[in-house]
């Protein structure tokens, strides 16, 4: 009986606390339309502790006195589908983190407004894929397979090499339905194998240890030593150089060439603070803010005036390969289905 009384007491106290504490109410409140706060939708690693969100928010508040609130929608695939979900209105001002392969789908939605930004003049010209400037590029990188040089496994030199029996259950890739690197890999295989890409995926199947829902998970598995090879970016060695002072993990050059990923930001037409939001995107492209990106996003800044840190000396630029996904609606599921259940 005593125990039960204690429980009732605990529950009552917890309940009262929950109902009365104003701080808790605030933590979950919707954005206040009158207050000066911009809401930004993005993906997980952008807001993570090592991501750029914290430093950007601080710098922007110092310069403009406006608070930023970052909301992570999970991975890149979830970000786009959250935007396009007709059942849920996007209650954000700004979106950061759509990539070049999602661009067309995102622009078709008509959710974004054209921007006029003064820092756009300094942005590398070949990145400007949207002539209407509704979605503007803020960073870019190249896909590459990362290899653990202490694994004792011989490094592959091409996509074809990955299908060799020697790499059985040694490769981690991401799900093309949910993750933008996963989608990038699909584009890579479609560019190299053209119509025979499905055949390639079938041959690749035995080599794949895991197809993870997001880049975070896949790369985490890789650095925990679960597999010696993982799909990632050519810039990743810089991370290991800067934080662990090691060159153990290497980005492998493939004879097929390497597709590029360009990441975009935009302002939503439904935003009540469009002017302010545009100011922020301009700030995101400024040389000052862009200098924060290499060592937080581990990507190249789009602004040509932004300086690269010393850690990027270990990053090499590989021959580029132009790669697109043929049917953005069908191909990702078809590719994933080849791997699932085998």
């Amino acid at each position, binding site marked *: 009986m005593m*125990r*039960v009384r204690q*429980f*009732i007491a*605990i*529950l009552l106290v*917890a309940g009262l*606390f*929950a109902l009365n504490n104003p*701080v*808790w*109410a605030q*933590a*979950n409140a*919707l954005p206040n339309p009158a207050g000066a706060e911009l809401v930004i*939708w993005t993906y*997980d*690693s952008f*807001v*993570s*502790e090592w991501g750029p*969100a*914290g430093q950007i928010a601080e710098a922007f508040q110092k310069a403009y006195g406006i608070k930023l609130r970052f909301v*992570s*929608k*999970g991975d890149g*695939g*979830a970000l786009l*589908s959250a935007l*396009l*979900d007709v*059942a*849920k209105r996007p*209650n954000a001002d700004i979106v950061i983190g759509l990539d070049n392969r999602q661009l067309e789908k995102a622009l078709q939605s008509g959710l974004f407004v054209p921007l006029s930004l003064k820092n756009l003049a300094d942005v590398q010209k070949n990145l400007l894929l949207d002539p209407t400037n509704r979605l503007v590029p803020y960073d870019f990188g190249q896909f590459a397979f990362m290899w653990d040089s202490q694994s004792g496994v011989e490094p592959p030199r091409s996509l074809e090499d990955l299908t060799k029996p020697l790499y059985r*259950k040694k490769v981690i890739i991401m799900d093309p*339905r*949910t993750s933008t690197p996963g989608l990038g890999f699909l584009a890579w295989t479609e560019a190299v194998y053209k119509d025979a890409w499905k055949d390639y995926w079938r041959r690749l199947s035995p080599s*794949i*240890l*895991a*197809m*993870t*829902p*997001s880049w*975070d*998970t896949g790369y*985490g*598995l890789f*650095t*925990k*030593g*679960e*597999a010696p090879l993982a799909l990632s970016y050519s810039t990743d060695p810089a991370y290991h150089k800067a934080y*662990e002072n*090691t060159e153990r993990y290497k980005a492998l050059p493939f004879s097929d060439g390497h597709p590029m990923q360009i990441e975009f930001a935009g302002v939503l037409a439904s935003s009540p603070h469009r002017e302010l939001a545009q100011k922020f995107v301009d700030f995101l492209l400024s040389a000052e803010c862009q200098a924060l990106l290499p060592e937080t996003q581990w990507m190249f800044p789009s602004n040509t005036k932004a300086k690269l840190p010393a850690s990027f000396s270990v990053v090499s630029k590989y021959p580029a390969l132009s790669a697109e996904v043929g049917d953005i609606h069908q191909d990702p599921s078809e590719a994933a*289905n080849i*791997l*699932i*259940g*085998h």
Partner: protein
Amino acid sequence: MSLFLYIALCFIIVFSLSPLAAFLNVALGHVRTSGAAFSSFLAQVPVSTILRSLKFTVLQSLVSTALAVAIGLPGAWLAAKFRFVGRKALLALAAVPFCFPPILVILAFILYYGREGLLSSIISLFFGPRRQYHGFLYSFWGLTMVHAFYNFPIAVHQISALWIRIPETQKEAAKTLGAGSLRAFRIGTLPWLLPGIAQASGLIFLYCFFSFTTVLVFGGRSGATIEVEIYHALHYQSNYALALILSIVETLCALGGILILTRARGRTQRTMRDFGRTSELRSPKGIQRLFIVIYGVFIVFFFVGPLLSIAIEAFRVPSPVGRATKFGLENFERLVKGFQAPLLGAILSTVRLSGLAAAFATIAGIIASLALFFAERKNSHSILPKLIEVFQWLPMAISSAIFAYGWLFLSSDRVVSSALVAAQAVVAWPFVSRALYASLRAIDPQVREAAKTLGASPLRAFMTIELRAILPSIAAAAAFAFSITAGDVNVPLMLGMGEVETLPLLLYRLTAAYRFNEACAAGLVLGLMTGLVFLLKEKVIDVA
């Protein structure tokens, strides 16, 4: 008063079913607005996806259940027959699947069984480093093993509760008549034991059938359960038609499972009542003692070990390669002081949202159980109590994704937190109601008759007898409801990350990002919150 109860119950049921109607409306609404016929609705539904995930779901549930029962049966036998140190602890493990959310247990398994996990380290101490590592956890067998270890305590608990009541007399009689011990067991014990095994299997099957987080994290390549496919359809494709058809298939299968479960439950309850007394526990001798030790080591090594590793890893501070590990509070600190201070916010919103959901669930559960109790007392053969009982099971047979989205469609400005509270309350109230109903039925009707004979009015009799008797159960059930809702990751994940940041969601993200030590710190906090149920009497777990 009973009229009032029925009205309230109708309200609860309508309330519970309204999100389904809302979801149906939206899913079919897409057809209407695009002006297309029903055939185009079906065109959005790839039959191969449904068949493949159905096959995978059924297969993995069957294998998981078989493994769980196989691990649990020896434990059930030991707990029913012998007196030994740790017997109570073994039975209390049954609370684990209910009060430690899957995401926490997944984390424990990766930490323990993963390539650089504790188990691997121990093995490599003896046998040197493992060269061939094929990521067992991420295969079909890895997934079923996780399910099996997560759910086997249910089998131990439920089967031993029955076994302890089956008297030895029949078996002894068979032996006297010349049967060997195996045959005597088959004649004298098995017929009474089987319903108990069926009941535990049914429950475990249902949990595995609806498994979501585990499959999402480990499933990747081996396949996707229907629940995971629904998540994909809703979250990544916005394909409501596919989600609708998938959830209908899922519910039909689950209803089949529930039918078997309730049948078996009816039979075990009869067995329990008929035999009544529990038999005496014996002290183990010789080989039996050895067997207990082996089983104990097995469970500690494979099941308790992973759980303990969470507590250890929470305090271990990851250090750069080559330096000695140290222990401290850095993981907690980083979560509290880091950018947007995720931990405190998550704790606060979990307590607030789950507290509200649990409160609603408790109130609804009290009303439903009283209505069922009174309806049955008045006329046990009428259709009404049966109908109420069906409704008690319904939320267990329907995808929580559909509830979550349904509530979202209902709330005018798409407020996620209110949809979250409503959806979690709907998922939790049947547990409360079943628990309370069981303790109401346990009250001896003669006590009430005595009170009436002594001149108490029906209301007064109710207040002094029934209400007082179930008051402890209400507190226990409320705590249980809180535990279920606080540990739930399905509903917040379905509703979209970032809208509400609850503790299980934070845990999911940290785990997904392989930030294990911080995940453990958050997990320890969550475990302490949901583990409250551990302190309860075993009662609530029996009816869960």
